[in-house]
Protein backbone atom coordinates (compact mmCIF):
# COMPACT_ATOMS: atom_id res chain seq x y z
CA UNK A 1 0.00 0.00 0.00
CA UNK A 2 2.94 2.34 0.60
CA UNK A 3 3.65 2.09 -3.12
CA UNK A 4 0.13 3.17 -4.06
CA UNK A 5 0.41 6.08 -1.63
CA UNK A 6 3.66 7.10 -3.34
CA UNK A 7 2.02 7.01 -6.77
CA UNK A 8 -1.01 9.03 -5.66
CA UNK A 9 1.23 11.50 -3.80
CA UNK A 10 3.33 12.07 -6.92
CA UNK A 11 0.13 12.48 -8.93
CA UNK A 12 -1.02 15.18 -6.49
CA UNK A 13 2.42 16.78 -6.63
CA UNK A 14 2.29 16.66 -10.43
CA UNK A 15 -1.13 18.30 -10.42
CA UNK A 16 0.10 21.10 -8.15
CA UNK A 17 3.29 21.70 -10.15
CA UNK A 18 1.39 21.61 -13.43
CA UNK A 19 -1.16 24.16 -12.20
CA UNK A 20 1.45 26.37 -10.56
CA UNK A 21 3.75 26.54 -13.59
CA UNK A 22 0.84 26.44 -16.04
CA UNK A 23 2.48 23.58 -17.95
CA UNK A 24 0.83 22.24 -21.12
CA UNK A 25 1.99 18.74 -20.08
CA UNK A 26 -0.73 16.63 -18.39
CA UNK A 27 -0.61 16.37 -14.57
CA UNK A 28 0.02 12.61 -14.57
CA UNK A 29 2.98 13.02 -16.94
CA UNK A 30 4.35 15.80 -14.73
CA UNK A 31 3.97 13.42 -11.80
CA UNK A 32 5.80 10.70 -13.73
CA UNK A 33 8.72 13.01 -14.53
CA UNK A 34 8.89 14.08 -10.87
CA UNK A 35 8.93 10.44 -9.74
CA UNK A 36 11.68 9.71 -12.28
CA UNK A 37 13.75 12.61 -10.90
CA UNK A 38 13.17 11.25 -7.39
CA UNK A 39 14.35 7.77 -8.45
CA UNK A 40 17.45 9.19 -10.17
CA UNK A 41 18.38 11.02 -6.95
CA UNK A 42 17.50 8.04 -4.72
CA UNK A 43 19.48 5.77 -7.11
CA UNK A 44 17.32 2.68 -6.57
CA UNK A 45 13.67 1.63 -6.62
CA UNK A 46 12.02 1.35 -3.18
CA UNK A 47 10.54 -2.13 -2.54
CA UNK A 48 7.05 -0.74 -2.12
CA UNK A 49 7.18 0.73 -5.65
CA UNK A 50 8.44 -2.54 -7.16
CA UNK A 51 5.53 -4.32 -5.49
CA UNK A 52 2.83 -1.93 -6.67
CA UNK A 53 4.30 -2.00 -10.20
CA UNK A 54 4.01 -5.77 -10.21
CA UNK A 55 0.38 -5.57 -9.09
CA UNK A 56 -0.79 -2.74 -11.35
CA UNK A 57 1.13 -3.39 -14.60
CA UNK A 58 -0.96 -6.37 -15.73
CA UNK A 59 -4.13 -4.36 -14.99
CA UNK A 60 -3.04 -1.34 -17.01
CA UNK A 61 -5.15 -2.15 -20.11
CA UNK A 62 -8.24 -2.54 -17.92
CA UNK A 63 -8.03 1.07 -16.74
CA UNK A 64 -7.95 2.28 -20.36
CA UNK A 65 -11.09 0.42 -21.46
CA UNK A 66 -13.69 2.91 -20.10
CA UNK A 67 -12.35 5.96 -21.96
CA UNK A 68 -11.73 3.83 -25.07
CA UNK A 69 -15.34 2.68 -25.13
CA UNK A 70 -16.11 6.36 -25.83
CA UNK A 71 -15.44 5.41 -29.45
CA UNK A 72 -19.18 4.61 -29.59
CA UNK A 73 -19.80 8.38 -29.44
CA UNK A 74 -17.69 8.89 -32.60
CA UNK A 75 -19.79 6.80 -34.99
CA UNK A 76 -20.49 9.65 -37.39
CA UNK A 77 -16.81 10.55 -37.66
CA UNK A 78 -15.86 6.92 -38.21
CA UNK A 79 -18.43 6.29 -40.92
CA UNK A 80 -17.27 9.44 -42.68
CA UNK A 81 -13.50 9.03 -42.37
CA UNK A 82 -12.96 5.46 -41.15
CA UNK A 83 -11.26 4.14 -44.29
CA UNK A 84 -9.05 7.21 -44.69
CA UNK A 85 -7.99 6.92 -41.04
CA UNK A 86 -7.08 3.23 -41.42
CA UNK A 87 -5.00 3.95 -44.54
CA UNK A 88 -3.22 6.88 -42.87
CA UNK A 89 -2.42 4.78 -39.78
CA UNK A 90 -1.00 1.94 -41.90
CA UNK A 91 0.96 4.06 -44.39
CA UNK A 92 2.54 6.37 -41.80
CA UNK A 93 4.14 3.37 -40.07
CA UNK A 94 6.43 2.55 -43.00
CA UNK A 95 8.76 5.61 -43.17
CA UNK A 96 8.95 5.76 -39.36
CA UNK A 97 9.93 2.11 -39.05
CA UNK A 98 12.57 2.41 -41.79
CA UNK A 99 14.17 5.51 -40.22
CA UNK A 100 14.20 3.86 -36.81
CA UNK A 101 15.71 0.57 -37.94
CA UNK A 102 18.21 2.30 -40.22
CA UNK A 103 19.58 4.44 -37.38
CA UNK A 104 19.90 1.35 -35.18
CA UNK A 105 21.70 -0.60 -37.92
CA UNK A 106 24.03 1.95 -39.51
CA UNK A 107 27.77 1.94 -38.54
CA UNK A 108 27.36 -1.47 -37.04
CA UNK A 109 30.73 -1.73 -35.24
CA UNK A 110 29.51 0.36 -32.32
CA UNK A 111 26.75 -1.90 -31.08
Amino acid at each position, binding site marked *: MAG*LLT*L*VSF*LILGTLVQAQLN*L*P*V*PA*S*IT*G*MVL*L*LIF*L*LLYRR*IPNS*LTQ*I*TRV*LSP*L*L*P*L*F*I*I*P*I*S*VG*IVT*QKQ*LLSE*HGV*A*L*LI*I*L*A*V*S*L*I*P*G*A*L*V*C*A*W*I*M*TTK*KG*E*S
Partner: protein
Amino acid sequence: MLDTLLHLPLFWAALTIGSFLLGQRLYAALGNSAFLPPILTGIVLVGLTLELSGISFATYMEGGQYLHLMLGPVVVMLAVPLYQFIHVMKKQWLRISLAVTLGSITTVGTAVFLAAWWIGDDAISITMATKSVTTPVAVTLSEQLGGIGALASAFVIITGVFGALIIPPLLNLTRLNQPHAMGLTLGVCAHAIGTSRAIELGEQQAAYSAMAMTLTATLHAVALPFIL
Protein backbone atom coordinates in the same frame (compact mmCIF):
# COMPACT_ATOMS: atom_id res chain seq x y z
CA MET B 1 -35.51 -5.42 -13.43
CA LEU B 2 -33.23 -5.54 -16.48
CA ASP B 3 -33.63 -1.80 -16.83
CA THR B 4 -32.58 -1.26 -13.21
CA LEU B 5 -29.55 -3.45 -13.77
CA LEU B 6 -28.56 -1.55 -16.93
CA HIS B 7 -28.64 1.72 -14.99
CA LEU B 8 -26.57 0.38 -12.11
CA PRO B 9 -23.07 1.94 -12.27
CA LEU B 10 -21.46 -1.09 -10.66
CA PHE B 11 -22.96 -3.37 -13.31
CA TRP B 12 -20.94 -1.51 -15.96
CA ALA B 13 -17.79 -1.63 -13.85
CA ALA B 14 -18.27 -5.37 -13.46
CA LEU B 15 -18.97 -5.83 -17.16
CA THR B 16 -15.76 -3.98 -18.02
CA ILE B 17 -13.70 -6.19 -15.71
CA GLY B 18 -15.43 -9.31 -17.06
CA SER B 19 -14.83 -8.31 -20.68
CA PHE B 20 -11.15 -7.68 -20.00
CA LEU B 21 -10.88 -11.05 -18.26
CA LEU B 22 -12.50 -12.73 -21.26
CA GLY B 23 -10.08 -10.84 -23.53
CA GLN B 24 -7.15 -12.16 -21.50
CA ARG B 25 -8.45 -15.74 -21.72
CA LEU B 26 -8.93 -15.43 -25.47
CA TYR B 27 -5.45 -13.92 -25.85
CA ALA B 28 -3.90 -16.82 -23.91
CA ALA B 29 -5.96 -19.37 -25.84
CA LEU B 30 -4.62 -17.98 -29.13
CA GLY B 31 -1.01 -18.26 -27.93
CA ASN B 32 -0.65 -14.55 -27.01
CA SER B 33 -1.23 -13.40 -30.57
CA ALA B 34 -0.35 -9.71 -30.96
CA PHE B 35 -3.35 -9.31 -33.23
CA LEU B 36 -5.96 -9.72 -30.53
CA PRO B 37 -4.75 -7.78 -27.47
CA PRO B 38 -7.09 -8.21 -24.44
CA ILE B 39 -7.84 -4.48 -24.42
CA LEU B 40 -9.27 -4.71 -27.95
CA THR B 41 -11.59 -7.59 -27.00
CA GLY B 42 -12.60 -5.68 -23.87
CA ILE B 43 -13.50 -2.51 -25.77
CA VAL B 44 -15.42 -4.38 -28.46
CA LEU B 45 -17.45 -6.40 -25.93
CA VAL B 46 -18.37 -3.39 -23.79
CA GLY B 47 -19.07 -1.26 -26.89
CA LEU B 48 -21.34 -3.92 -28.36
CA THR B 49 -23.24 -4.28 -25.09
CA LEU B 50 -23.81 -0.51 -25.03
CA GLU B 51 -25.02 -0.53 -28.63
CA LEU B 52 -27.38 -3.46 -28.10
CA SER B 53 -28.83 -2.17 -24.83
CA GLY B 54 -29.13 1.42 -26.03
CA ILE B 55 -27.42 2.72 -22.90
CA SER B 56 -25.53 6.00 -23.38
CA PHE B 57 -21.80 6.38 -22.89
CA ALA B 58 -22.48 8.89 -20.08
CA THR B 59 -24.50 6.29 -18.15
CA TYR B 60 -21.76 3.72 -18.75
CA MET B 61 -19.12 6.12 -17.44
CA GLU B 62 -20.93 6.40 -14.07
CA GLY B 63 -19.56 2.91 -13.49
CA GLY B 64 -16.56 3.12 -15.79
CA GLN B 65 -15.16 6.08 -13.86
CA TYR B 66 -14.15 3.80 -10.98
CA LEU B 67 -11.66 2.08 -13.27
CA HIS B 68 -10.80 5.25 -15.18
CA LEU B 69 -9.75 6.85 -11.88
CA MET B 70 -6.70 4.55 -11.75
CA LEU B 71 -5.30 5.86 -15.04
CA GLY B 72 -3.51 8.77 -13.33
CA PRO B 73 -1.50 6.70 -10.79
CA VAL B 74 -0.72 4.14 -13.50
CA VAL B 75 0.80 6.80 -15.77
CA VAL B 76 2.91 8.05 -12.84
CA MET B 77 4.03 4.43 -12.34
CA LEU B 78 5.66 4.37 -15.81
CA ALA B 79 8.61 6.19 -14.18
CA VAL B 80 9.67 2.84 -12.68
CA PRO B 81 10.44 0.97 -15.96
CA LEU B 82 11.82 4.20 -17.42
CA TYR B 83 14.33 4.45 -14.55
CA GLN B 84 15.38 0.83 -15.12
CA PHE B 85 15.93 1.41 -18.84
CA ILE B 86 17.98 4.57 -18.32
CA HIS B 87 20.66 2.34 -16.77
CA VAL B 88 20.55 -0.18 -19.61
CA MET B 89 20.82 2.41 -22.38
CA LYS B 90 23.84 4.32 -21.04
CA LYS B 91 26.26 2.76 -23.55
CA GLN B 92 24.16 3.39 -26.63
CA TRP B 93 22.29 6.47 -25.49
CA LEU B 94 23.06 8.64 -28.52
CA ARG B 95 22.01 6.07 -31.10
CA ILE B 96 18.90 5.10 -29.15
CA SER B 97 17.86 8.71 -28.55
CA LEU B 98 18.30 9.52 -32.23
CA ALA B 99 16.34 6.46 -33.35
CA VAL B 100 13.50 7.17 -30.92
CA THR B 101 13.34 10.89 -31.74
CA LEU B 102 13.73 10.77 -35.52
CA GLY B 103 11.69 7.59 -35.88
CA SER B 104 8.74 9.06 -34.03
CA ILE B 105 9.00 12.43 -35.77
CA THR B 106 8.86 10.60 -39.12
CA THR B 107 5.87 8.39 -38.37
CA VAL B 108 3.89 11.03 -36.47
CA GLY B 109 4.80 13.75 -38.99
CA THR B 110 3.62 11.57 -41.89
CA ALA B 111 0.36 10.73 -40.13
CA VAL B 112 -0.44 14.31 -39.10
CA PHE B 113 0.43 15.62 -42.56
CA LEU B 114 -1.72 12.98 -44.28
CA ALA B 115 -4.62 13.60 -41.90
CA ALA B 116 -4.47 17.37 -42.32
CA TRP B 117 -4.28 17.05 -46.10
CA TRP B 118 -6.87 14.31 -46.55
CA ILE B 119 -9.37 14.99 -43.76
CA GLY B 120 -8.54 18.50 -42.62
CA ASP B 121 -10.12 18.34 -39.17
CA ASP B 122 -7.94 19.86 -36.43
CA ALA B 123 -9.14 17.58 -33.64
CA ILE B 124 -8.36 14.51 -35.78
CA SER B 125 -4.90 15.81 -36.70
CA ILE B 126 -4.06 16.51 -33.05
CA THR B 127 -5.32 13.07 -32.06
CA MET B 128 -3.19 11.54 -34.85
CA ALA B 129 -0.08 13.02 -33.19
CA THR B 130 -0.51 10.73 -30.19
CA LYS B 131 -0.92 7.52 -32.22
CA SER B 132 2.49 6.00 -31.44
CA VAL B 133 2.32 6.49 -27.68
CA THR B 134 1.19 3.79 -25.31
CA THR B 135 -2.58 4.12 -24.68
CA PRO B 136 -2.71 5.57 -21.13
CA VAL B 137 -0.38 8.39 -22.14
CA ALA B 138 -2.06 8.92 -25.53
CA VAL B 139 -5.52 9.30 -24.00
CA THR B 140 -4.37 11.73 -21.30
CA LEU B 141 -2.26 13.71 -23.75
CA SER B 142 -4.89 13.88 -26.45
CA GLU B 143 -7.53 15.30 -24.12
CA GLN B 144 -5.09 17.87 -22.77
CA LEU B 145 -4.16 19.04 -26.29
CA GLY B 146 -7.69 19.35 -27.66
CA GLY B 147 -7.89 16.00 -29.42
CA ILE B 148 -10.45 13.25 -28.80
CA GLY B 149 -9.49 10.77 -26.06
CA ALA B 150 -11.63 7.89 -27.27
CA LEU B 151 -10.34 8.31 -30.81
CA ALA B 152 -6.74 8.45 -29.54
CA SER B 153 -7.21 5.08 -27.92
CA ALA B 154 -8.58 3.60 -31.17
CA PHE B 155 -5.70 5.07 -33.22
CA VAL B 156 -3.12 3.71 -30.79
CA ILE B 157 -4.58 0.21 -30.76
CA ILE B 158 -4.96 0.08 -34.57
CA THR B 159 -1.39 1.39 -34.96
CA GLY B 160 -0.17 -1.30 -32.60
CA VAL B 161 -1.94 -4.12 -34.42
CA PHE B 162 -0.83 -2.85 -37.87
CA GLY B 163 2.72 -2.27 -36.61
CA ALA B 164 3.01 -5.77 -35.18
CA LEU B 165 1.79 -7.04 -38.56
CA ILE B 166 3.82 -4.82 -40.95
CA ILE B 167 7.13 -4.07 -39.19
CA PRO B 168 8.73 -7.55 -38.94
CA PRO B 169 8.28 -8.44 -42.66
CA LEU B 170 9.23 -4.87 -43.68
CA LEU B 171 12.52 -5.00 -41.79
CA ASN B 172 13.24 -8.54 -42.98
CA LEU B 173 12.70 -7.39 -46.55
CA THR B 174 15.02 -4.38 -46.18
CA ARG B 175 17.57 -6.41 -44.17
CA LEU B 176 17.36 -3.98 -41.26
CA ASN B 177 16.32 -6.89 -39.08
CA GLN B 178 19.07 -7.18 -36.44
CA PRO B 179 17.43 -8.03 -33.08
CA HIS B 180 18.10 -4.63 -31.48
CA ALA B 181 16.84 -2.73 -34.54
CA MET B 182 13.72 -4.89 -34.77
CA GLY B 183 12.94 -4.47 -31.06
CA LEU B 184 13.49 -0.74 -30.98
CA THR B 185 11.42 -0.15 -34.11
CA LEU B 186 8.52 -2.20 -32.75
CA GLY B 187 8.64 -0.21 -29.50
CA VAL B 188 8.78 3.21 -31.16
CA CYS B 189 6.16 2.57 -33.84
CA ALA B 190 3.84 0.04 -32.22
CA HIS B 191 4.23 0.59 -28.42
CA ALA B 192 2.83 -2.12 -26.10
CA ILE B 193 1.26 -4.24 -28.84
CA GLY B 194 4.54 -4.14 -30.81
CA THR B 195 6.32 -5.12 -27.63
CA SER B 196 4.12 -8.19 -27.20
CA ARG B 197 5.11 -9.13 -30.78
CA ALA B 198 8.78 -8.48 -29.92
CA ILE B 199 8.51 -10.86 -26.96
CA GLU B 200 7.60 -13.61 -29.45
CA LEU B 201 10.66 -12.80 -31.57
CA GLY B 202 13.24 -13.06 -28.78
CA GLU B 203 14.69 -11.70 -25.57
CA GLN B 204 16.82 -8.94 -27.07
CA GLN B 205 13.95 -7.74 -29.25
CA ALA B 206 11.68 -7.68 -26.20
CA ALA B 207 14.07 -5.67 -24.04
CA TYR B 208 14.72 -3.07 -26.74
CA SER B 209 11.05 -2.82 -27.57
CA ALA B 210 9.95 -2.26 -23.97
CA MET B 211 12.64 0.37 -23.53
CA ALA B 212 11.77 2.12 -26.79
CA MET B 213 8.08 2.17 -25.99
CA THR B 214 8.67 3.83 -22.60
CA LEU B 215 11.12 6.37 -24.03
CA THR B 216 8.75 7.21 -26.89
CA ALA B 217 5.82 7.76 -24.53
CA THR B 218 7.88 10.07 -22.33
CA LEU B 219 9.36 11.99 -25.23
CA HIS B 220 5.97 12.56 -26.84
CA ALA B 221 4.23 13.40 -23.59
CA VAL B 222 6.77 16.07 -22.75
CA ALA B 223 7.47 17.42 -26.25
CA LEU B 224 4.09 17.35 -28.04
CA PRO B 225 2.36 19.93 -25.81
CA PHE B 226 5.07 22.43 -26.72
CA ILE B 227 5.06 21.60 -30.44
CA LEU B 228 1.30 21.60 -31.11
